[in-house]
C-alpha cells in the first residue's frame, strides 16, 4: 500500500517549498519537490540599468546574497570586457567568503541540527519531532550551547561582510568593477581578528559537532545517495583573470570529471508553472512566463539539465571536484563536506588578507556597453550559480538566472527524469509516518534555499492521504 506524505511547508530552509513522497513498506518510492512561491526576478530585471543588477539580484536570497552580487558583477564585467584590479578581486572574495562562513554556520546550527538533536525548550525550537534523537544528553546539551554560540559567530561573519561591504545582507561592496573599501591597516586588522574568532569556532565546535553526528548517525552515509552527477562553476577567482579559481569548476557525470561547457545547459519547464513552449532552452533564450494553472506542473522551480543530466551542487560537489573529498554521495557526506568547506574557506581568507596591497586601486571604472551579452558563473553556498545578461541600448533586455536550488531542487524534466533531491529521497526509510523526520534530513543536507519546512503531518495523528495503486 502506498502512502503519500506531504511536508508543507518545509521550514528551516530559505524560502517556501513542499516535498511530497510516496512511501511503501516504510521506504520512499517516489518523490516530488516543489518550490511554492514565485517572484519572477528575471522579468523584474528587464529594462533596468545593468549596473543595478549586482545590488538588485542580491535580493533574491537573504542568506547567500553576496553570491548573486558576485555573479551579477561577473556577468556585466564579462559583457563590458573589464576586470577588477587585484585588490578589488581579493576584497570581493573576502566579502563572499565571509558570507559563505555565515551561511554554512547558520545552515548547520539553525537549520539542520534540529533534525538530529533535542533542541532547547523554548519557542521556536519547540514544537518539533521527538523521534530518532540519538545523542547522549551531555553531547546534546553541548550542541545546544553551540547553537547559541553559533548565533554570535554567524553574526560576526556578517559583520565581516559589513566591514568591507557596508552592510549585510546585501553588501554594497560587491559590484562590477571591483570593490569599494580601502584595505587600510585598521580595517584589515579588525577584519582579521574577527575572522580568527570565526575560524576558531569552525575548528573547535563545528567540525567536532559534525564528526559526532557522522558517528552517531552513520547510517546516513547510506541514505540520500545518488549517482555522482555534479556540477560546479568554480569559486573565488584567483587573480584578475577570472577563469582560474581557488575552488575549480567541473562537471562530473557518472563519476567522470570534465570541464564545464555552459552551452550544454538547458532549462526544462514541462513540470514547472511556466507557459513557455515546452521545448527546453539555453539560458540566453530562456523565457519566464508564469502560469500557475498549467496542467501537470507542480513547482515554480525550473529544471536545468547539463547534457540532459540532473546535476547536484554544493559543498560536496565543490570538494569532490577539487579532489579533497571523494568518499560517497550521501546525506552525511553532504553535511561533513559543508563543515570542511567552511574550514577551508576560512583558512584561505586569512591568507588573502595578507595579499592585499594598501594604496593600490580597488575599482576599475568602465563604460556600460550599448549592446553586449555576458555570462557570470560562480559556485555559491548551495551549488552552481549563473547569471546571463543581455544588454541593448545600455539597458538590460534579457536576464536569466539559474540558481543552485534550481539544480538541486528541480522537478522532473521533459523526459521525466527526477531532480537530484527527488533522486536522493528514493529509498529513504521512514520509520514513523506521522513524524517523517528523515525527509527533512535528506532535503536539508542539500541546502535547499527555500524558506520551506514541509510535511503534512502532525505527530501522532493518522496519515491523511492514502492512495491505492
Amino acid at each position, binding site marked *: 500500500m502506498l502512502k503519500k506524505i506531504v511536508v508543507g511547508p518545509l521550514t528551516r530552509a530559505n524560502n517556501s517549498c513542499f516535498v511530497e513522497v510516496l512511501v511503501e513498506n516504510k521506504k520512499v518510492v517516489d518523490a516530488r519537490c516543489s518550490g511554492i512561491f514565485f517572484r519572477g526576478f528575471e522579468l*523584474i530585471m528587464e529594462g533596468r540599468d545593468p*549596473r*543595478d543588477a549586482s545590488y*538588485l539580484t542580491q535580493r533574491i536570497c537573504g542568506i547567500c546574497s553576496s553570491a548573486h552580487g558576485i555573479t551579477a558583477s561577473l556577468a556585466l564585467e564579462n559583457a563590458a570586457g573589464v576586470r577588477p584590479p587585484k585588490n578589488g578581486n581579493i576584497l570581493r572574495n573576502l566579502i563572499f567568503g565571509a558570507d559563505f562562513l555565515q551561511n554554512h554556520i547558520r545552515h548547520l546550527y539553525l537549520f539542520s541540527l*534540529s533534525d538530529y538533536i533535542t533542541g*532547547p525548550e523554548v519557542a521556536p525550537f519547540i514544537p518539533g519531532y521527538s523521534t530518532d534523537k540519538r545523542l547522549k544528553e551531555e553531547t546534546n546539551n553541548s550542541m545546544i550551547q553551540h547553537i547559541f554560540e553559533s*548565533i554570535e559567530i554567524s553574526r560576526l561573519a556578517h559583520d565581516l561582510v559589513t566591514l568591507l561591504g557596508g552592510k549585510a545582507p546585501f553588501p554594497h561592496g560587491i559590484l562590477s568593477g571591483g570593490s569599494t573599501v580601502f584595505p587600510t591597516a585598521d580595517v584589515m586588522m579588525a577584519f582579521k581578528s574577527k575572522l580568527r574568532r570565526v575560524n576558531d569556532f569552525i575548528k573547535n565546535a563545528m567540525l567536532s559537532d559534525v564528526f559526532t553526528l557522522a558517528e552517531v548517525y552513520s547510517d546516513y552515509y547510506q541514505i540520500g545517495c545518488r549517482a555522482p552527477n555534479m556540477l560546479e562553476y568554480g569559486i573565488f577567482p584567483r587573480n584578475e583573470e577570472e577563469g582560474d579559481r581557488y575552488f575549480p569548476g567541473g562537471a562530473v557525470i557518472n563519476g567522470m570529471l570534465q570541464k564545464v561547457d555552459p552551452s550544454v545547459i538547458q532549462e526544462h519547464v514541462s513540470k514547472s508553472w511556466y507557459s513557455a513552449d515546452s521545448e527546453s532552452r539555453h539560458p540566453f533564450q530562456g523565457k519566464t512566463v508564469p502560469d500557475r494553472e498549467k496542467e501537470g506542473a507542480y513547482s515554480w522551480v525550473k529544471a536545468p539539465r547539463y547534457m540532459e543530466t540532473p546535476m547536484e551542487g554544493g559543498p560536496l560537489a565543490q570538494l569532490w571536484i577539487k579532489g579533497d573529498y571523494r568518499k560517497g554521495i550521501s546525506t552525511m557526506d553532504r553535511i561533513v563536506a559543508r563543515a570542511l568547506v567552511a574550514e577551508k574557506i576560512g583558512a584561505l581568507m586569512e591568507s588573502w588578507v595578507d595579499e592585499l596591497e594598501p594604496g593600490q586601486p580597488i575599482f576599475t571604472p568602465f563604460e556600460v556597453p550599448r549592446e553586449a551579452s555576458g555570462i557570470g558563473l560562480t559556485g555559491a553556498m548551495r551549488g552552481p550559480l549563473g547569471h546571463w545578461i543581455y544588454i541593448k541600448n545600455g539597458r538590460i533586455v534579457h536576464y536569466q538566472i539559474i540558481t543552485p536550488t534550481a539544480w538541486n531542487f528541480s522537478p522532473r524534466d521533459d523526459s521525466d527524469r527526477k531532480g537530484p533531491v527527488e533522486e536522493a529521497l528514493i529509498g529513504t526509510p521512514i520509520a514513523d509516518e506521522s513524524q517523517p523526520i528523515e525527509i527533512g534530513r535528506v532535503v536539508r543536507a542539500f541546502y535547499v534555499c527555500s524558506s520551506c*519546512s514541509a510535511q503534512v503531518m502532525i505527530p501522532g495523528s493518522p496519515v491523511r492521504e492514502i492512495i491505492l495503486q
Partner: protein
Amino acid sequence: MKQFSKKSRPPVIWLGTNTCAGDMLSLLNSLEPGYQSLITDLIDFRFNYLLGSAEGDTATGVLKAVTEEQRGKYILVIEGTIPTRTNGLYCVVGNRDGKPLTALQAVRELGGGARHVVAAGTCASFGGPYAAAPNPSESVPVQAVLDRKVINVPGCPINPDWMMGTLVHLVQYGEPELDGFNRPKIFYGDTIHDICQRRAYFEDGIFAEKPGDPWCMYKIGCKGPVTYADCPNRQWSGEHLSWPVKANTPCIGCTSPEFPDGDAPFFEHLPDINLPGIKISANRFARLAGAATAFGISIHLIGSILTGRVADTIKKDFSGGISRKLLSIIKNTDGKRYGGKN
C-alpha cells in the same frame, strides 16, 4: 535551558511570505539583545517560518493554536510581499485540509486577531523588489490586504536594531510614534543626508566620481537626500561598523516606499522617466528637451529672418518709435508733435 516567566512575553508569529529571508537573518545579527535573549526574555517566539523546528502541519498547527488561544494578544510580523495573482497561489505558506494555504489567506486571518501587525522589511511595508515592475506575482504590501493599522519597519533588509527596537517598544511601551508612512519615528525620523558624515563634502562640492571614492556620493546617485533612516548614526550590522556611504557607495534608498522602481537606476541622481511605450533616463530626457527647444527656436528665427519679419520689427520699433522719441526728448524739440504740453 532556563525559562523566564512566560507571562510577560507576548506571543509573536513571524510569517514569511514572498521573501528572501533577509529580514529574519538580519534580526539574527542583533548584538544587544541577541537572539537568545530575544526569545527567552522578550517574546514568546511561537512561530517562525525560518527557524522554527516544526514543519508541515505541526507548523500550521501552531498558527492555528495561537490565533485561537491568544486572540488580541499576539504580535504578528509579516516578512515579504503578499502576491494576489491567481487568488494568491503565487505564495503558499502551508497546507490546510489538503489544500494550499496562501499567504493572502493566512495574513488576512492572522491579521484580524493580532494585537499589533508589523511589516518587516520594505517588501512587506511597501512592496519592494518583488513588487517591482512588471510585478509578475501581482504582489502588494501587507497594509493593502488588511483593514487595520500596520506598523511599517522598512529596510532591505531591516537593520537589526530597527526591528528589535520596534519589538521592544511594542512589548514595553506599546505602539511607537509613527510618521506619514507608518514608520516608527525613532528610526526613520531624519533623512540620511541630514545626518551623513560626508555632508561637509556635499556642501563644499567635493564629490565622488565613481564607487570607491571616499567623498560625497551625490553625483553617483546617492539617495540619502530623499531617504529616511538613521544608517549614518546607527550603522550596520550587529557591531555597528559601517554603512553604504562609509563603504564608499551610494545609498540606494531601500527604506523608501518607492524602492526600487521609483529610485532606480541606483547610480543615477533621478529615477527614469516613464513615457508611454518607452523608459528614458532623466538626463537624457533633459538633453532631448533642451535640444528640441533650441531646434524649434532656431527654425522659427530663420523663418522670421527669411520672411523679413525681424527686419520689419526693428525698423518699425527703432526707427519710427523709440529712437525718434528719445531723440526728441534729448533735443527738447518737436514736442508738440507728440501732443505734449510745452
